[in-house]
């Protein structure tokens, strides 16, 4: 397996599980022009991310995310893409599109607290009642 690490805006650190296992692999980040327009990003937000990226061993790309990732995969001779899981629908859509032509491994984040799948999320108080037992065991 020769992975390309896709670093996206929800997980900019090398110690995260998705990247930590592949520290020697090429890594890329893509500024997606369509996203920047749709979400009306201001320059200061771009600059903040850019400064984070400059401290990481990552190639900074721009354009259509799926297309740039495909091109990067070819250029680096990689046979799969690894990335971090996130609830962000845009990133989830990109992952689905990538899966049309390559293998994508999506590593879960370190959980803040491990809760039963059936945890009641209707209000914070209900969630906290259960989270508290795990975070502050008596």
């Amino acid at each position: 397996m020769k992975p390309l690490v896709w670093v996206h805006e929800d997980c900019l650190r090398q110690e995260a599980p998705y990247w930590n296992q592949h520290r020697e692999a090429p890594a890329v980040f893509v500024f997606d022009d369509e996203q920047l327009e749709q979400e009306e990003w201001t320059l200061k937000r771009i600059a903040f991310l850019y400064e984070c990226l400059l401290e990481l061993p990552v190639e900074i790309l721009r354009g259509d995310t799926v297309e740039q990732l495909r091109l990067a995969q070819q250029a680096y001779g990689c046979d799969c893409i690894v990335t971090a899981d996130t609830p962000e629908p845009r990133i989830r859509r990109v992952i689905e599109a990538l899966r049309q032509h390559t293998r994508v491994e999506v590593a879960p984040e370190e959980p803040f607290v491990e809760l039963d799948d059936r945890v009641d999320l209707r209000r914070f108080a209900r969630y906290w009642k259960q989270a508290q037992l795990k975070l502050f065991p008596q």
Partner: protein
Amino acid sequence: MEAGLGRGDLLQRAVPAEPQKPADGLRKLKREFSSREELARYLQEQFPRPAQRDAHLSPIRGGRSQAEAALAPIQPARYAFTRNYLDGCVTGLSPYIRHGVIALTRVREVALSRVAHPFHASKFVVELAWRDYWRRLYGLWGQGVWQDREPYKTGWAASDYAESLPVEVEQGRTGLACMDAFARQLAETGYLHNHARMWVAAWVVHWLRVKWQAGARWFLKHLLDGDPASNNLSWQWVASTFSHKPYFFNRENLEKYTRGAYCQKCPQRGDCPFEGSYEELHRKLFRSQVEG
């Protein structure tokens, strides 16, 4: 904005791998800058449309080293009783946490290591848990965080609220010293204290009767920690479309937690829309069937 721009910093610190094959079509951006001004100029050229919305950098800098610098002095025990004050012991970690520059679990561990008993860090851990909670809901609802999760509990229907924000609000030119200062701070720095976010959101939704979605879009444009999970669901919490009752405040509350920074010099002093008891404001803002 010029303030905060460091001079002569060498910004490049890490080197990525080189591609094996010629990389036709790969649109690489530059990684070497001799100063923050040079970075700003480069980004203005590369991203002209975002630069039309605003072209300056925030005094808050990105990067792991900055995140560590913000993490080092945290005081979770003091946080518990000062966090509601604008000058309280809040951490400024949100832009780094939001982009995963540091893990929420690591922030929690550092907080717990700073206190004699875990209980002393519990208020801080509860706030971290809010982020986890909103993200779990985002995982379930996705784009659904843009829809009213429940009806407004203000006595007004969603159709009673305006679709868009008055321009003076975004520009910070309404004449209300507090709200204008918050709007300008948001645009200049991309950060607002939690209490300021709550006041601004309550003012937009309950006083100006504008849909929370318009306010949420405004915040997301500017916030360095801008995140549809925490942002939209907090707006919904204030609006009452994801809570049992609307959040609102009065002038006395704002004056207390800002330590009088705005009220004294406000052009609308004496004619403040936030003046009054909670009961009076409740009667003014909401239709009568709503409980206080």
